[in-house]
């Protein structure tokens, strides 16, 4: 699961008011370098919730530092404006696409419901009585 995906996710379990951002408990993270496309990242920024992205990175950064040796885990600025230089776009690319939560849990901030992430796939399927 990429942090881009996390950015759009919310819990829909019964009793949820807002349902996001989901907390992340990362048990295993991986880094996989994908081709950097400045234009695509640039076009993506206005569609993101930057606050949630920073939050998500904060949730997994310690685990990333432990598990990932290939790259230095980028630090994101508190805010981003309109003008994004290449260096920042690359950092955003890494955070959005190249860090993968492979094993762990997503946790609903309202109800505490835990959603398992296995082999990179979050299982958000609810039981009938949770809908």
């Amino acid at each position, binding site marked *: 699961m990429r942090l*881009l995906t996390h950015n759009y996710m*919310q819990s*829909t379990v019964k009793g949820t008011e807002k349902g*996001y951002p989901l907390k992340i408990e990362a048990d295993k993270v991986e880094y996989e370098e994908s081709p950097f496309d400045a234009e*695509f990242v640039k076009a993506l920024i206005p569609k993101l919730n930057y606050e949630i992205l920073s939050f998500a990175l904060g949730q997994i950064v310690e685990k990333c530092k432990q598990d990932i040796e290939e790259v230095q885990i980028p630090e994101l600025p508190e805010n981003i404006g309109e003008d994004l230089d290449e260096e920042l776009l690359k950092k955003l690319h890494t955070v959005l696409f190249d860090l993968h939560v492979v094993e762990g849990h997503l946790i609903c901030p309202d109800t505490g419901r835990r959603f398992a992430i296995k082999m990179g*796939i979050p*299982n958000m399927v*609810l039981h009938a009585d949770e809908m």
Partner: protein
Amino acid sequence: MKLKHLQSALSSVPTPQFTEPNITLEQYATSPELTSYIIYAALQNEDIGYGKSVLDLGSGTGMLSIGSAIVGSSSVLLVDCDEGALSIAKENMNEMGLGDVEEVEDDDDEFCQVEYMLAKLKHTPRKDIVGTGGRGGGKGRGRGKGRANSRSNGGRGNKGAPALPLQPPQKIGPLDDGIPLASNCVDTCITNPPFGTKPGNAGIDITFLRTAVRLARRSVYSFHKSSTREYLLKTIESWGYQGEVVAAMKFDIPKLYKFHSKDNVDVDVDLIRVIINEEKEGGEESQE
């Protein structure tokens, strides 16, 4: 990319796709031919391809996602409720070398960020939909029900009024449908929904479509039985959007289940496109 090239690329997706199809989920693999039509149409409308994010709702074994990735969409998210299907989809994707960084040879190669998610749509069977309910497939029966359906609409009151006034998608709370994703989170949503032919599934294709409309900010592509066309277009209109029939075709459903008496069942299906926002990339897009 030409249509025939797309078709031949899709034909190389490994089969059989479902070894143990789940009947209640109405799992049928989308044929390469059908897939190539939807992908080609979406590509021509610039709804998928380079720079576009695509969500495949009820992705099954991933045919529509594979098609979207082949034509260079920048990201594809596969959402399905069946773990088995999703892992076949993942295998198929890998087999095709899609979303695989190892396959990238130079910086100019288009790369597709592929992501998977298990989630299940919340569906309340619709007793009021006569048209899509029933016990079996087959086109004769489907047509008959289509007629029954329009009769019941007529009896409801005003001609031309939507058969079932549904809330516009803006008002569909994201917490309502069981899909844990924010509204308007992707450019284009494509779906080959269950047609709702199994008991308890009545109207499920409309549930899929409504969620697809909620998730897309640009366009939705979906397959539906041609027999429900009129009802479907009215329903889309009642949501405040315009639906169009992109193509009418035959859906060749192979004999996968015991209840299929014939070897294959041909069902008339429409490829429907719902336009959410046609702004070209870089323009102002609505953000909910």
